[in-house]
């Protein structure tokens, strides 16, 4: 970890970084630095829409989970009337943590310090010794839990700390087209398969966001065993094929990897494929049917991956979806949340198979996950070295690529899949926020 520089030099560094991105350079220092981390907390996580929970994690009245936006711990709860609210997980009386459990069901939250009691929507209802102690001076309506703005898309619940930020739809800016490839698996949509795996890693959150914004480049190397042994149906000679799509000015990006011999919708049961052809638009079906791997990031720190993984070497395998959130907990340090999403309408048998494929490849003990974190932790360590302070990395793949005119979806689509276009868009948006110009 580097030492904290003067604030003036930090502002200058942000400006230099913005200029560098345009010419395909990005500084290593961004991935492990106290001052950069602090600036992200202040200017980025306080402004962006951040993922909180999937609606299927809190399906019934009173269900709640606790999640983070930046360094703020929030209670995300469904109230007794079915509405979803997010409130700061802090009692308004003396600041104690309200919900110490990460998930549960409660009609009311009661503070363990002095007993202030709130509805699960956040309104204050119970104040011990109200009459004797406060003598009519305390108005309960003024002292509810601190509320956070929420909005949702296809079951994904997001929160935003900035009351002035544009609505979620505008923030996603057309990336919904690609989110549907993960979320509209059948007419019933998707649900989480159990609570998320989560763990602390000495890795900067941005490395994960970048990787999942479409880094097909690392796959044949970092995960080469999967190719060689036949667990992952792709080939080193063709793995560069596919599209890289970004939403200019928004930071979101997705890699859509093709496999020349991979069958359309391969790895899904037939009845589900029939439903997917109804739940997706013809343009989405065209993109989907050519896609073996879809790996995308919603700016700033939510990602999705859909890919097949086979238990039998040489087979097509089972297609699974993982959703992941990279919660920053310090410079070069994060808490990883990893979910498996399964189609609600699929058979129990398919859900189990998809979850098995997910756990073999991803989650804390997943094989691909371990390959990645080994690399990402080393990158983070390197980024904290003194000599690396002024070292840039090249982001020049696809600098001169023209958008593919045949591509049927929104955004800026280029070929091949192995490309830095999405990453330049990601870092450009990140730098806009750090400069206070987003």
């Amino acid at each position, binding site marked *: 970890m580097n030492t904290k520089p003067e604030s003036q030099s930090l502002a200058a560094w942000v400006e230099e970084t913005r200029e560098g991105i345009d010419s395909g350079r990005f500084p290593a220092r961004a991935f492990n630095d106290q001052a950069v981390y602090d600036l992200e907390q202040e200017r980025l996580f306080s402004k962006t829409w951040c993922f909180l929970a999937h609606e299927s994690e809190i399906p019934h009245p009173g269900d709640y989970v606790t999640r983070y936006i930046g360094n703020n711990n929030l209670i995300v709860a469904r109230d007794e009337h079915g509405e979803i609210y997010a409130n700061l997980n802090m009692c308004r009386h003396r600041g104690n943590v309200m919900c110490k459990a990460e998930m549960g069901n*409660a009609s*009311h939250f*009661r503070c363990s310090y002095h*007993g202030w*009691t709130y*509805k699960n929507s956040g309104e204050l*209802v*119970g104040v011990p010794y109200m009459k004797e102690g406060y003598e009519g001076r305390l108005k309960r309506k003024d002292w509810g839990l601190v509320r956070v703005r929420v909005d949702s898309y296809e079951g994904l619940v997001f929160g935003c700390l900035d009351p002035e930020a544009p609505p979620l739809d505008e923030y996603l800016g057309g990336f919904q087209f690609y989110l549907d490839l993960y979320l509209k698996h059948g007419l019933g949509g998707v649900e989480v398969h159990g609570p998320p795996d989560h763990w602390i890693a000495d890795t900067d959150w941005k490395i994960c966001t970048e990787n999942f914004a479409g880094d097909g480049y690392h796959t044949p190397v970092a995960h080469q065993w999967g190719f060689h042994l036949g667990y992952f149906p792709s080939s080193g000679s063709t793995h560069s094929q596919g599209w890289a799509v970004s939403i200019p000015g928004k930071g979101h990006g997705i890699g859509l990897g093709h496999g020349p011999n991979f069958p359309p919708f391969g790895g899904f049961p037939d009845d589900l494929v029939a439903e997917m052809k109804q739940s997706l638009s013809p343009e989405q079906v065209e993109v989907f049917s050519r896609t073996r791997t879809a790996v995308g990031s919603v700016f700033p720190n939510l990602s999705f991956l859909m890919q097949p993984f086979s238990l039998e070497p040489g087979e097509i395998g089972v297609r699974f979806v993982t959703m992941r959130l990279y919660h920053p907990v310090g410079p070069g340090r994060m808490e990883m949340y990893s979910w498996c999403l399964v189609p609600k309408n699929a058979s129990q048998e398919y859900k189990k198979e998809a979850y098995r494929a997910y756990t073999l490849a991803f989650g804390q003990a997943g094989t691909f996950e371990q390959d990645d974190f080994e690399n990402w932790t080393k990158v983070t360590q390197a980024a904290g070295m003194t000599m690396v302070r002024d070292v840039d990395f090249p982001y020049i793949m696809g600098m001169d690529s023209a958008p593919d005119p045949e591509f049927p979806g929104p955004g800026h689509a280029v070929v091949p899949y192995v490309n830095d276009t999405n990453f330049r868009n990601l870092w450009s948006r990140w730098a806009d926020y750090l400069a206070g110009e987003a």
Partner: protein
Amino acid sequence: MDEISKQPTIERPPVGDVSQYPEQSAEEPIVIANEFADVVIRKVETRNGMRLDIWSPRRGSRILLDAVALDCLTFQEPELISELLERRPAP
């Protein structure tokens, strides 16, 4: 809601700091718990009928609800419970 007029009715309910469970009972009591409270629930046979016994081990408080009381709970709004929680926090 008048913030001032709410009065606790009694300092301690007349039943319940020790709940007697029948040793030979075939039915296991049901425990409903979250991070804020826990209660033990049991069906109780009286000579001429039955009641639902809700016991709070932490408080030692207990209530025995018959079918009419339970039936009337089924059509209350969630706000009723919020109103009850406006009272003092312990018996």
